[in-house]
């Protein structure tokens, strides 16, 4: 309690002197699953231009602690994610956005649900679509937004609604943004083949709801330095376990049929706090930092630290190496293969909920000339569009539980006539 009081007083101390504040610009760039972009920069100026972003990523992971087989077995997974984001200004104050995409994935782990390799469970495609509307209130420095979205895959459907509000200070040096979002999900119950009671692969469905409320306060401190403090309270209820995750208990031989289906509580409360900093160290080098403290009622406590140093090779060409470190304690319901006690109420052998540390290292490149990379005629009416910028990024991720991952991402930005 003493520590909590200390943290509260220091946090308030951080907020009080922020009266000089500057440009916030704390847009949350959620590519997927977020219907209402909080404060798109384009709404602050004139009518603006129609922006089109074509994004994609290729993700691959491998490991030896697959949750489907009770904390052992392959975790090999590949995922390809083409996405289109469209931002259309309606007038000088309002803007529409659309975000359409898919995840095409192949999972060696879920292929073990029925023990028949290369079965239909080995791959799937998830589609998602999110739409948002933002409007700057006339004569005020407020921007409000509304959004909604859907996503669907073979065994999981999700609908979400979102709302946001952002207020900038008179001198433009401070911004407070608040956003709320609710997800209504429906998961199809698919149990491992040897644990099905009615002989059918699917056994009805179960709901899951997620409610999240985020708040971000950003502040310009000097001509070269700005910071933000953020929090995002998340409450989930419903089916939080995965019905095709097996758990093997002490005393069993690990043979098929001796497992139980993963069981987790029906609610979860998460409360992370983040601190972000951007510093223009010299005309060539910038520093970007992020720290997050995370806590939840599953017993997981985590610290995450990110550092990025963009280097301006030319005014239009930036190279940015980055590093991320994450460490977390294990959920109180986690135990490895054959380590759970038979009498436990909740249990999982999913290593995503285990205690571990993880390192991520990578490099990004961005090329964004003032007048764009190139121009071309659009197929509709022969009008001229501009290829504005290119952003490429690669990262290697390694977890202390033997999981490794590589991800390559690209963002192609266009201005449409």
């Amino acid at each position, binding site marked *: 309690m003493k*520590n*909590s009081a*200390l*943290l509260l007083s*220091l946090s308030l101390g951080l907020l009080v002197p*922020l009266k*000089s504040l*500057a*440009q916030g*610009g*704390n*847009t*949350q*760039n*959620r*590519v997927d*699953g977020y219907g209402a972009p909080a404060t798109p920069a384009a709404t602050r100026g004139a009518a603006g231009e129609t922006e089109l972003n074509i*994004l994609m990523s290729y993700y691959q*992971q491998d490991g030896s602690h697959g949750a489907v087989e009770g904390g052992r077995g392959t975790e090999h997974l590949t995922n390809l994610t083409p996405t289109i984001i469209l931002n259309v200004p309606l007038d000088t104050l309002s803007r529409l956005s659309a975000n359409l995409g898919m995840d095409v*994935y192949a999972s060696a782990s*879920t292929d073990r649900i029925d023990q028949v390799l290369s079965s239909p469970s080995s791959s799937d495609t998830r589609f*998602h679509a999110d739409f948002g509307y933002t409007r700057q209130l006339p004569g005020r420095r407020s921007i409000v937004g509304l959004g909604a979205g859907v*996503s669907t*895959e073979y065994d999981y459907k999700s609908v*979400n609604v979102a709302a946001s509000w952002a207020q900038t200070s008179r001198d433009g040096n401070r911004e407070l943004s608040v956003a709320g979002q609710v997800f209504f*999900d429906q998961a199809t119950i698919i149990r491992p083949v040897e644990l099905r009671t009615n002989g059918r692969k699917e056994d009805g469905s179960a709901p899951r709801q*997620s409610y*999240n409320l985020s708040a971000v306060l950003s502040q310009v*401190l000097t*001509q070269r*330095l*700005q910071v933000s403090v953020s929090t*995002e309270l*998340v409450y*989930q209820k419903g089916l939080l376990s995965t019905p095709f*995750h097996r758990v093997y208990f002490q005393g069993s031989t690990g043979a098929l049929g001796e497992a139980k289906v993963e069981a987790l509580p029906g609610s979860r*409360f998460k*409360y*992370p706090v983040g*601190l972000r*900093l*951007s510093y*223009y160290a010299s005309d060539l080098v910038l520093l970007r930092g992020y720290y*997050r*403290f*995370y*806590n*939840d009622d599953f017993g997981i406590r985590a610290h*995450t630290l990110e550092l990025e140093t963009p280097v301006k090779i030319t005014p239009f060409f*930036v190279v940015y190496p980055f590093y991320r470190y*994450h460490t*977390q304690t*294990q*959920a109180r319901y986690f135990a490895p293969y054959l380590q759970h006690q038979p009498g436990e109420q909740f249990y999982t052998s999913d290593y995503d909920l*285990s205690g571990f540390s993880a390192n991520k290292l990578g490099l*990004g490149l961005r090329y964004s000339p003032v007048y764009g990379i190139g121009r071309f005629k659009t197929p509709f009416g022969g009008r001229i569009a501009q290829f504005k910028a290119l952003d490429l*990024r690669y990262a290697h*991720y390694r977890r202390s539980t033997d*999981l490794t991952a590589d*991800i390559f991402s690209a963002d192609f930005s266009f201005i449409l006539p």
Partner: protein
Amino acid sequence: MRLLFPFPRPGRLARLAVVAGLLVALPGCVSVAAYQKVYLNDEDMKLATKRVETYETNFESYREGAGGANGGKVGGGCGCN
């Protein structure tokens, strides 16, 4: 009480980060005019994850028990593979 202030026993690193943020913020009572924001308006100075980075924050939210407060995904989608 726990619900009103749900941060039981923050670690030493967390407290250090808040103190560091406080020290950075204290000299910040200087108003920066719009014409002085040439550095602040730089694309790399944005206080948010880059759009191209969001795929990474999404997979991290699935592969780690922790998530949120970083512009990443917090719901919608199984991610159970």
